[in-house]
């Protein structure tokens, strides 16, 4: 006889009859009989998949493999797409990709992109298989009237069950029970659906909302700080990382020694990077033609220093300033600073420089741009800047060394001031005059040198043209310039 389930609720509905069998063969036999008898809404239950059940119950092959296949094909596109996006382009807004240039491999290189694509295919397919199967099986299903049948606990151990559902047309309470007994059932139970427990408990909603709010708090706290500034000092969680035991360039050297030694710093001059040795040349500035680039004869090219950095130049300038101050104090006029060796300078225009009339005009133009402000348009030392500075110096509001007139004897003297030295003056500065190396390219500097020599040759000291006989003056100028060219 069928036993009622151990459910004490009043409202129940019969869902089916559950028959227990003791071995899989009887179960399969019963399933075949049931299908022959016309039942379609039924299910068998077993501790392991029983071979032969599928056709016996009439289970059609699942579509799961096709779902997985389509997901896999999509994953091919996804995998290649992610990599194309992330490494193959860098223009997509707002998150452009990043094109790595590595060992000459093509930016989007299919062979190298296969492994990740493959893994994405496998991962996507595995998810599709796993979740697809549970979804198709309509699991998880925690509420199942079958679980209320106490005998049913043996289904995961060693017993086999067949349930005929009331929803089936052929089902009839007494007939079905009789059939199940005929087919070898050891015991038969009623399966009743409890109709009362279908509402969710009320406290679930409250807990759910509270829980959701609690979960939102941490990200809200984090994002509220996004884009804000904070005056508090940083927290240093990993001190070894924030204060690393090493010296960074262009900062003071770290204290790397053991305090017990008493030696407090690595280098006395506090620098963490050493200065380049003399003769070190900045990358890209190796000039083989010392005559053209430095105005120095090739024999003396070894004397060319790196030009130094700002510190070096500052020191040189400091030294020069100190010397000049000393000389000023001594009352002597500031003479051209003593050179170690005037012989190193070239005395003629270098081969890399071709002097033509156009170039001379250019030299004039450049001179008027860069030099005339202090030295005056005719090189007479009467530039407006100089005049102003001198007037300020006279009142004591500034210190100023006058810009020299280019027509002075020792500036014109080829022995004391060869053209190479003029070039050097423009390049590296002299005294108060700063270096124009950065502003004026090499060719232009030589053009200015040529123009300066032209001015010196003509002896014109006024930039205001003389009134009478302009043509004669101009012709004389031109002739002298032509001579100048030949001389130089």
């Amino acid at each position: 006889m069928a036993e009622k389930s151990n459910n004490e609720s009043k409202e129940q509905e019969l869902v089916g009859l559950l028959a227990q069998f003791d071995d899989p063969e009887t179960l399969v036999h019963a399933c075949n009989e049931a299908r022959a008898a016309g039942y379609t809404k039924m299910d068998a239950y077993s501790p392991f998949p029983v071979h032969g059940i599928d056709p016996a119950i009439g289970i059609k092959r699942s579509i799961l493999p096709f779902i997985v296949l389509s997901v896999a094909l999509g994953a091919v596109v996804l995998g290649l797409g992610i990599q194309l996006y992330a490494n193959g382009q860098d223009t997509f807004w707002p998150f452009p990709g990043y094109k790595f240039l590595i060992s000459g491999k093509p930016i989007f290189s299919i062979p190298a992109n296969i492994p990740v694509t493959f893994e994405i295919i496998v991962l996507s397919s595995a998810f599709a298989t796993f979740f697809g199967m549970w979804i198709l099986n309509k699991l998880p299903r925690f509420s199942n009237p079958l679980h209320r049948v106490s005998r049913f606990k043996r289904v995961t151990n060693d017993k086999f069950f067949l349930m005929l559902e009331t929803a089936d047309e052929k089902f009839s309470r007494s007939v079905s029970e009789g059939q199940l007994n005929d087919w070898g059932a050891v015991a038969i139970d009623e399966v009743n659906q409890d109709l009362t427990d279908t509402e969710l408990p009320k406290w679930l909603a409250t807990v759910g909302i509270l829980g959701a709010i609690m979960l939102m708090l941490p990200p809200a706290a984090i994002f509220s700080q996004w884009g804000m500034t904070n005056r508090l000092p940083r927290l240093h969680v990993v001190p070894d990382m924030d204060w690393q035991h090493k010296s960074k360039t262009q900062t003071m050297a770290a204290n790397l020694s053991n305090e017990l030694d008493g030696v407090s710093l690595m280098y006395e001059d506090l620098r963490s990077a050493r200065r380049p040795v003399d003769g070190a040349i900045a990358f890209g500035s190796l000039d083989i033609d010392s005559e053209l680039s430095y105005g120095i004869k090739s024999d003396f090219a070894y004397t060319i220093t790196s030009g130094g950095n700002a510190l070096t130049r500052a020191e040189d300038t400091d030294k020069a300033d100190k010397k000049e101050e000393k000389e000023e104090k001594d009352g002597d006029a500031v003479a051209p600073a003593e050179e170690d060796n005037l012989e190193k300078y070239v005395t003629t225009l270098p081969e890399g420089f071709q002097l033509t009339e156009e170039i001379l005009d250019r030299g004039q133009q450049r001179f008027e741009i860069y030099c005339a402000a202090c030295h005056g348009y005719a090189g007479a030392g009467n530039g407006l800047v100089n005049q102003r500075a001198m007037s300020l110096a006279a009142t004591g509001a500034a210190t100023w060394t006058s810009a020299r007139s280019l027509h002075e004897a020792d500036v014109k003297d080829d022995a004391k001031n060869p053209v190479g030295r003029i070039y050097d003056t423009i390049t590296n500065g002299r005294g108060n005059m700063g270096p124009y190396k950065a502003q004026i390219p090499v060719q232009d500097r030589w053009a200015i040198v040529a123009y300066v020599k032209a001015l010196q040759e003509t002896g014109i000291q006024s930039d205001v043209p003389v009134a009478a006989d302009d043509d004669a003056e101009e012709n004389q100028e031109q002739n002298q310039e032509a001579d100048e060219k030949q001389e130089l």
Partner: protein
Amino acid sequence: MHETRPAKITSPIVSLSDGYARTIPVALIVAAVGIVLSFILLQGPERFLYSYLANFAFLLSICLGCLFFVIIMHLTRAGWSVTLRRIAELYAMCTPYMAILFLPILVTTLTGSSYLYPWVDGGWSIHGGGDALASASVDQLPPLEQLKASFLNPTFFAARWVVYFTFWGVAAAFFLFTSLRQDKEGGIKLTHRMQAISAPALIAFAASIVFASFDLEMSLDPFWFSTMYPVYFFAGGVLSALATITLTALWLQRTGRVTDEITIEHYHDMGKLMFGFIVFWGYIAFSQFLLIWYANIPEETFWYDIRINKVGWKTLSYILLIGHLFIPFLAMMGRTVRRSKTFLSVATVYLLIMHWIDHFWLVMPHYANAPGGHLREGVVTTSFFYFLGDVACTVGMIAAFIAIFCLVARSRPLVPLQDPRLGECLNHEVH
């Protein structure tokens, strides 16, 4: 539930019967004509030998794959494949006869002509083979040909091949004849013996495959080397062996020589195995390619360079990739296709064609890109006669192979008659 079949062969004795006696002479004539015609059309030994080698390698890989099938089925105590095993044993037994087919290659090498293998005479590395000369950058080292001469010389080569064929012959003979003996005697003792021998046989087989693949194909360009090469040869060989066994079984069933001893379940399993080895082959081929491509070392990449960046070869490489990997992968994935005899007939032929292309692709580029500076004419499509010559050679070699198979199979039973696991095999069901 299905009825349980009795564990014995119920049909009348299954064999090639007299068919083999008629086939052999025809096949031999076709073989001779094909090979001679090919020699003429390809204008001499130099080009002919490459075509010959490609076909020989293709056929040898099938025989060796079948030998592997036999060994592994014994080693794993497999029951489902019993009725298919005899076909594999017969193909494996073709290996010693392949030694006869190997003679042209062996004789060429022993007589000192470097038509095929450039290392036969010296001077292949001094002229440099493209950009692959490793010793050029290290002045003190002797040229490569000297370094490798202790291995790559005709005498040692011949000795090795004697060893290979001896071992393969002995192993194949052991498994075939023990199995044939079991047809008469029955019992389990012989099965246990074959199982016991299968383990050391597999080890020796692995060693032989390693060096045979080096000797046969990798040394065509003695500059190049790849530790993966034996695995590549093996993967392709087993795949085509499975295809051959399946195709043969289908043909035997279609012509009535085998009836219900081989069921659709067996074909399903063979289909699964073929699918597995398609994936395995693709994995091995891709790994070898990726590693060489990624490191970009010229002494290794040139081998792929001549196969990918030259116009004709590029197309063939893509055909190989798509046709040997992607298409069979998608095609053999499904359950339905694995259980359709028609489909399997087409698929196995297709796979064999693809495997042939694989060996063609492995061997032929070295004709035009031989080290030592021999610049030869193009390979297939430069002239119609060359194409015909290749076809003739292929047809001839396959005919020779069929002749050998018929000779081996004679009137021997095509399924094991008294294997103790017959019951399991005949009742085999794939879920």
